[in-house]
């Protein structure tokens, strides 16, 4: 057996069949995928449904707390969950670089399989492209998830209402800082690990305990700041947050102080924002805290009526400032 991937594995010929059989079918094993028709045939998906897609291009492929494989499942499972849906099925498109280690590929496929198993989703259809060396950076994965929506009314970023409580399911910035810290040349050691996690079961429990919620959203790229600003815009409301209440791990704080970054702008991959009527906030928090992925859940603020669609932070020393929408990628400041 070859140790590295040849272009042939993307040819549609025997070499493709071998990769599919020996790697994908083997680890994703399920009868729907095994049909290998042009499309998967799904019988138990019922309208209304939620569909979400994401491509995963993270570097490095492996990092403390996860890998591109776990991320590719968790990210999409979470996006589907944010509509109050039960994620059921996932499609998976690989773009692989010629020369990729087959051992590495297999271990990442195993990560995906493990993450899918935990989340209770099946990977039912896929596609593999192999591009010439230099045409992609090792591997990219796209996943698209589908699930039947059970929450009625369906949560949406447009539904935040004045007086609602703003909850977050745990500490912020772990994933973003982990990725920065995993880049080769950083002379920086930390115990931070990515929070990559599937939130579907926790979300189901939250809706179960607290009834339909107004907004669910996972604060991924752009972090808490971008996500809350988006929701404020979409719902035409403002928010007032309590800095002291926002959970951030000590190592994330210290790593950010070294790099000149703000944890509230860093990506998370296992957290959700939940906005719901104040009187159900405690039930929702209790449901979150009962999940292994929501132990540090906290209420961090309140939706207020200011039409400026602003997110304001009450700081630790008791001052106030805007938590604004970021412009681009967070850049460390040094000089």
């Amino acid at each position, binding site marked *: 057996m070859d140790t590295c991937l040849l272009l042939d594995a993307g040819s549609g010929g025997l070499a493709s069949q071998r990769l599919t059989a020996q790697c994908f079918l083997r680890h994703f094993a399920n009868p729907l995928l095994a049909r290998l028709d042009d499309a998967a045939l799904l019988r138990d998906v019922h309208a209304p449904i939620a569909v979400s897609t994401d491509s995963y291009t993270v570097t490095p492929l492996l990092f403390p707390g996860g890998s591109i494989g776990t991320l590719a499942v968790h990210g999409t499972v979470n996006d589907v969950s944010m509509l109050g849906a039960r994620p059921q099925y996932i499609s998976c498109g690989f773009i692989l670089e010629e020369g990729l280690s087959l051992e590495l590929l297999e271990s990442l496929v195993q990560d995906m399989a493990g993450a899918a198993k935990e989340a209770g989703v099946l990977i039912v259809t896929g596609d593999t492209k192999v591009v010439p060396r230099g045409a992609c950076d090792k591997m990219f994965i796209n996943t698209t998830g589908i699930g039947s929506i059970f929450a009625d009314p369906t949560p949406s970023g447009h539904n935040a209402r004045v007086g609602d409580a703003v909850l977050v399911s745990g500490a912020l910035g772990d994933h973003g800082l982990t990725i920065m810290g995993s880049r080769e040349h950083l002379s920086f050691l930390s115990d931070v690990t990515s929070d990559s996690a599937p939130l579907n079961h926790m979300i189901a429990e939250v809706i179960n305990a607290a009834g339909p919620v107004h907004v669910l959203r996972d604060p991924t790229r752009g972090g808490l700041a971008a996500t809350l600003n988006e929701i404020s815009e979409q719902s035409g409301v403002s928010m007032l947050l309590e800095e002291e209440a926002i959970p951030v791990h000590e190592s994330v704080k210290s790593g950010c102080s070294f790099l000149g970054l703000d944890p509230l702008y860093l990506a998370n991959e296992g957290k959700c924002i939940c906005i719901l009527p104040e009187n159900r906030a405690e039930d929702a928090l209790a449901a979150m805290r009962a999940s292994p992925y929501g132990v540090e859940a906290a209420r961090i603020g309140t939706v207020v009526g200011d039409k400026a669609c602003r997110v304001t932070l*009450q700081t630790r020393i008791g001052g*106030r400032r805007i938590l604004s929408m970021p412009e681009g990628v967070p*850049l460390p400041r040094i*000089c």
Partner: protein
Amino acid sequence: MTFETALHDPKLCRVLLARLTRALDGRSMRFMEVCGTHTVSIFQSGLRSLLPASITHLSGPGCPVCVTHDVDVAAFLELAGREKIVFATFGDLLRVPGPGGQTLKHAKAAGAHVEIVYSPLEVLTLAVSNPDNVIVFPGIGFETTAPAVAATLLTARQKKIKNFCVFSLHKLVPPALRTLLDEEGDNAANIEAFLLPGHVSTILGIAPYAFLADKHRIPGVVGGFEPADILLALCRMAEQLRDNAPAVVNAYPRAVNDAGNPKARALMEEVFITTDALWRGIGRIEQSGLAVRPDYADMDAAVRLGVRLVETPQQQPGCCCGDVLKGRIIPTTCPLFGEKCTPAVPVGPCMVSTEGSCAAYYKYLEH
């Protein structure tokens, strides 16, 4: 308890605010900080919203990125775009627009090899791993950064690393303070006190600022960067003003010796020589910059790579960065602020750097 916790302690801050209010005793105070880290801290911590209304907070030329002149930006953009050059820089510099709004981000997108580093020492690692390229590090920063860059040059020479050079654009704080006060008549911006930079002072000590009190009778207080540090420094300023006893004092003794760091100064002087420098929005200030000494010309990008400084077009009409940097206006007074000039499409450097005062106003304050 950590320093971080202690210095953000709301109770401590309240104590210090009360002391500040008492010291002000109804008078107003117009102070300027000249360190970008102070700027960010005052906004980010929310301290600004807690300051007594009678305090006017001005951000001076304290962000090394903001004061980098168009001419120098144009020069390093040209350098970065050359073949076989790796341009290794602190992340801050990527957004700074040169003539025509072009930045290192654009250069990178167009194919320049740009690497972000956190320490000049990492640049040496890059040099070793890219033997076919010349690694250019732009020396941007004040007296805090310059010794680190000097140490890196000395290390490169000692390790015989040949493919590394520095484009020195370092600037010096005291000459800028002199200019602010002496330009176009005495203290046109009417600055009543200076919050002096913490870590610049770690290197310099407090003697170089003596002229503030001696010549201009303006208090100068070296302060740390946490809210309580800054409040303490503000108290000392207000107290000096109250007592009509201006002095240059060190309110940050845990990081600053009054004598500074002589070893760091010695290394800096070994490698660099003072020279005139262009400051964005301010113009040429005599002996306010650092150039690489001829002994180290092989590591001087300006010499080795033949950097040509070219006159750049006039600043965009309406841009008031100069007045902002000199403390004559606050950002929101600029007619472009928030309209034609935003972090997405910055007109001036004060809007682009995370430590720029226009950016801080835009990012942290309601507008």
